[in-house]
């Protein structure tokens, strides 16, 4: 596969909503270990509403679609998830403005914009034990694959593996952002809930995605 069409992106976000809603309780449990346990619920709340408003979303222009998703997520995800996931979607939407199809290179650019959006809002960087520790390696992997001219689906699979590995590595990090930071050294050995979720979501998408 060389390109993703707007309908493919729609399918990917649909899969994302599916896996987030399915894992609501599990994501809460991940967050309970070090945070305050609201992550799964806060995230699922926004994606449930996204699905209920699904029919009314414009799906031809990928940029517009992602931006609309971002607005719904910003409005409806509770806690820190609203601004973080909302700015990721809105920033990616801005990047993809007017696009009806996406190359692998553009896909990596889109994910990079999501990373930029999150960093602008939350101020975290690689190694702060946040979802960026999965998202940044996944993005870098896509960039390398684009340079190598790989098939887009193969590249996405590699990228998902990088996300899972990045999440795994957060076990070794002392949290400095979010409520987990109050634990200090006690947060060691607990993976970051957001990073773990990114690994699970990306893996689910690459396993389930069919045109």
């Amino acid at each position, binding site marked *: 596969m060389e390109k993703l069409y707007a309908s493919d992106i729609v399918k990917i976000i649909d899969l994302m909503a599916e896996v987030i809603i399915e894992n609501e309780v599990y994501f*809460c449990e991940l967050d*309970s270990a070090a945070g*305050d*346990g*609201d992550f799964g*619920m*806060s995230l699922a*709340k926004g994606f449930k509403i996204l699905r209920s408003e699904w029919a009314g979303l414009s799906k031809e222009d990928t940029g517009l679609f992602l931006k609309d998703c971002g607005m719904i997520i*910003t*409005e*409806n*995800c*509770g*806690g*820190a*998830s*609203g*601004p*973080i996931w*909302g*700015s990721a979607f809105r920033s990616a939407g801005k990047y993809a403005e007017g696009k009806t199809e996406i190359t692998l290179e553009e896909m990596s650019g889109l994910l990079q914009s999501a990373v930029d959006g999150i960093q602008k*809002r*939350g101020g975290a960087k690689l190694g702060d034990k946040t979802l960026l520790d999965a998202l940044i390696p996944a993005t870098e992997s896509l960039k390398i694959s684009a340079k190598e001219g790989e098939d887009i689906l193969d590249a996405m699979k590699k990228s998902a593996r990088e996300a899972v590995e990045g999440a795994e590595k957060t076990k070794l990090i002392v949290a*400095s*952002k*979010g*409520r987990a*930071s*109050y*634990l*200090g050294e*006690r947060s060691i050995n607990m993976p970051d809930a957001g990073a773990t979720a990114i690994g699970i979501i990306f893996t689910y998408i690459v396993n389930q995605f069919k045109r």
Partner: protein
Amino acid sequence: MKKIINRPETVVDEMCKGIVLAHPELVLSEKYKIIKRKRLNKDKVSLISGGGSGHEPAHAGYVGTGMLDAAVCGDVFASPSTIQIYNAILETRSNRGTLLIIKNYSGDCMNFDAASEMAEDEDIVVEKVYVNDDVAVKDSLYTIGRRGVAGTVFVHKIAGAAAEKGMDLSQVKAVAEKTIANVRSIGFAFTSCTVPAKGTPIFTLEEDEMEFGVGIHGEPGIVREKIVPADELAEKMVERIVKDIPYQQGDEVALLINGLGASPVQELYLLNNSVSNAIAKRGIKIYKTFVGNYMTSIDMAGASVTLLRLDQELKELLDEPSDTPAIKIW
């Protein structure tokens, strides 16, 4: 889980409705879960606070004359969304600008900051203060810093009085910041709280254990240890606080003994006696005392102690009248 409840998903909505039914001088914007004064004064600085629910009477209980203009209610222990806060700013827009009083947590800071940026695009002047009074958390450049806990109530009271007196936005912000610079708290838990959506306690403590330095969302504290008699507990708490700001003989403070939700008022008054003795022993004078459930953690047993060091300006503002569901001063 044994709670007075219909469904976990509707707890916050139904509670908000219950608040305005009991206090008809307040009104609820249902869509955005904003509780605001029915009669807004366009010629004073607007004050907004809010955060996750589960800390009642905070923050809706502090909406009214002499304190807040609106409180934005998030889900239990989760910050309200950017859009909710943005709408609170729009709905309480005044000719003198808006001050947001934010408890220092990642989610709250992100949502309140993003909402203030949106409001500024609409030419509303917005200033922000971040309350970070919990001495249990280490403050360092590498973390998000201390948590905002019960000391927030003093910020509401003092900034609220300043706004009601007609001070400018910059002056209201300055007294709020002065309050934040002089207020310190520490808490302990005897039991965990139970979030309705989860249905089970966040953590477990043995019959003879306490979590010293606990946060108001059940976040871990400094140490888990054996419970001690009230006098000893009071001594430990006061010591932590006075070590944090240098006090001098004769300094005056406002004292808040705050219940976390499930400790009887009897025990809070008993704790007040112990804490007052520990403060007097250090040559510090208590100017005014508040005892009760002001910033709770749903059904957690335990309490927090807050000291606010006062100067003449803060004393006068603290004594100004306020008429809100949870604090009435005439």
